[in-house]
């Protein structure tokens, strides 16, 4: 629901999506550590336990049992949503997600689906240190059968989470911690659901295509604003999901702009950014005049603000790199 300013907070959007689907479908259940009585450590889920009773469950610190429990429940009639508090802890749950849930529909010869959603808070920028700041996308993207969704706005979060819950196979739904408190305008036309695997051109442009997901999209949009003041007209693509991966939307944009910059919060090597670049390059090689990826250094994520800030692929870095490669004055472009 919109607040009095007509905006919706990201964390509220998540809560509303869960509530709406639990209302709509009795088989939807939700569990995680301190998600019920306490309402979650990021204050995302207060009120759900009061409203849905024993369908909202506080669990022990047992990430693997949660993941396997969601799998077992999903293949026997429930549609579980479960929360892994920090995405970094997904590593403890991965055997079940990857070896059980992601493979079930295919290996069972399509006898049965496995409709589960794992939600997790990801991302750096909050000085949480190396084990509470990672993006899990590199670990998860190369798993056929596991969809990976990461919304950039509150309204997208609501619609994509509702669709993820309705999806008949496993979805990793990743919420960037730096987005929980952002607010986005809502309107009556906002769709109830958005399809998984459909990217969006969130800003039209002609000179260069900026591609990202989750928080990175917001950085790209701000960078595009700044670049436009320097005469660079950037198009921005929000991938919304990394599996399924909508390469077509990216290729169409690149065919127009002939330049692509992919912005990833994570390492270059083994990251989704260069992976997408490789797919785009193979298919659209002769459309490309320039192409590069802006990612993080190849180290763990440091704690201190003076180390973490420059570690991030932020707006300033995007503006600087695009301006310099496109021959626009970088100094002016960074707003200095």
């Amino acid at each position, binding site marked *: 629901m919109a607040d009095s300013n007509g905006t919706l907070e990201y964390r509220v959007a998540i809560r509303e999506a869960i509530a709406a689907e639990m209302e709509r479908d009795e*088989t939807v*259940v939700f569990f995680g550590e301190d998600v019920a009585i306490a309402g979650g450590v990021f204050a995302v889920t207060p009120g759900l336990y009061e409203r849905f009773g*024993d*369908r909202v*469950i506080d*669990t*022990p610190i*047992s990430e*693997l*049992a*949660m*993941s*396997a*429990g*969601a*799998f*077992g*429940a*999903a*293949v*026997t*009639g*429930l549609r*579980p949503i479960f929360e892994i508090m920090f995405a970094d802890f997904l590593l403890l749950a991965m*055997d*079940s997600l990857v*070896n*059980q849930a992601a*493979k*079930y*529909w*295919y*290996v*069972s*010869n*399509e*006898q*049965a*689906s496995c409709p589960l959603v794992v939600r997790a808070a990801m991302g750096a920028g909050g000085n949480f240190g190396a084990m509470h700041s990672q993006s899990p996308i590199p670990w998860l993207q190369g798993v*056929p*059968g596991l969809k990976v969704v990461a919304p950039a706005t509150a309204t997208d979060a609501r619609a994509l989470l509702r669709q993820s819950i309705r999806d*008949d*196979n496993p979805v990793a739904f990743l919420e960037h911690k730096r987005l929980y408190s952002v607010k986005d305008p809502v309107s009556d036309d906002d769709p109830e659901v958005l399809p998984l695997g459909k990217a969006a051109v969130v800003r039209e442009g002609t000179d260069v295509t900026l591609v990202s997901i989750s928080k990175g999209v917001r950085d790209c949009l701000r960078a595009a604003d700044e670049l436009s003041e320097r005469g660079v007209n950037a198009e921005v693509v929000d991938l919304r999901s990394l599996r399924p991966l909508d390469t077509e939307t990216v290729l169409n944009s690149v065919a127009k702009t002939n330049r692509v910059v992919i912005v990833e919060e994570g390492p270059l090597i083994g990251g989704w950014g260069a992976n997408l670049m490789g797919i785009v390059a193979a298919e659209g090689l002769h459309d490309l005049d320039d192409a590069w990826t802006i990612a993080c250094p190849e180290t763990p994520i440091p704690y201190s603000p003076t180390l973490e800030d420059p570690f991030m692929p932020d707006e300033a870095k995007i503006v600087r790199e695009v301006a310099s490669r496109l021959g626009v004055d970088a100094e002016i472009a960074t707003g200095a």
Partner: protein
Amino acid sequence: MAEKTQSKAQGAEIDAQAARDLYRRMRLIRTFEDTVQQQFQKGNVHGTTHLYSGQEASGVGVCSMLTEGDKVAGTYRGHGHSIALGVSPQKLMDEMFGRETGACGGRAGSMNVVDVESGLIGCFGIVGGSIGAATGAALSEKLLKTGNVAVAFFGDGTSNQAYFHESLNWAQIEKLPVVFVCENNLYMEFTPIENVTAGAIGSRPQAMGIHYQQVDGNDVFAVREAAAEAIEHARSGAGPAFLETMTYRFVGHSRSDPGKYRKPGELDEWKQRDPLILGRQSLQERYGIESERLDEIDADVAKELQEIVERGLAAPFPDPANGGGEFK
């Protein structure tokens, strides 16, 4: 699933016909496994297999006490769990043969069979997976108020693994209707279980206050009785039950196994307690069924397997063009 439905009505007490069925099912598993082994050697079964030979009374005893809608999670040693539950041996053999007519159309193979219609939510090639999955299935049974239970089969070696600990605890906290069946065949692959396990396995569920029983896993009637109690406990809403069936594997752990780790004489001793021998004795003693009748069953099963192999080898292989494309 006629047998299962019947047995629910009766508790562990059964008539001669049902008792004969128990024996038949154990024989079916043994002959199935012998056949898999032969067919592996002929190159018709691929990859690897883990046979259930020697442990038949455990799976058959437990599954014979289940009822319509109950769920089972088996292991990579799952042919026995599957057949005990009522999965068609034809579909199972066809799966080993990699045929389109297999339980999973040839996609799964020996270790990962799923047969939803029988309640087999899966066989789990990765140790411990069955425990986590059955716990989740039990969450469904509880929240959907089905009155059903879920059963996890797993081995002794699996008691040292993450899924075991986390799932047992969660199941007990949530009072989930799940029965944990630990088939203790004394070895984790080639390693004696005591070398890698601190304390008795049974003391672990007991430390969590979980209902625990240990039973002679080679005596199908003893297993049935114990399973009746365990299943009843779980079904009643009192929380999980843990049943440790003491048994022994007669064949290699998987297809390549030198077997050097066995203690001298151990295999022979256990072979005297072959679940099929014990089963025959019980049928004679309890129901007066003559040896010849049981030989007839054996012959009948042998014939069934022959036909299964013939049909299976004649079945088509799956076409890679079907499915296998974009993931749903």
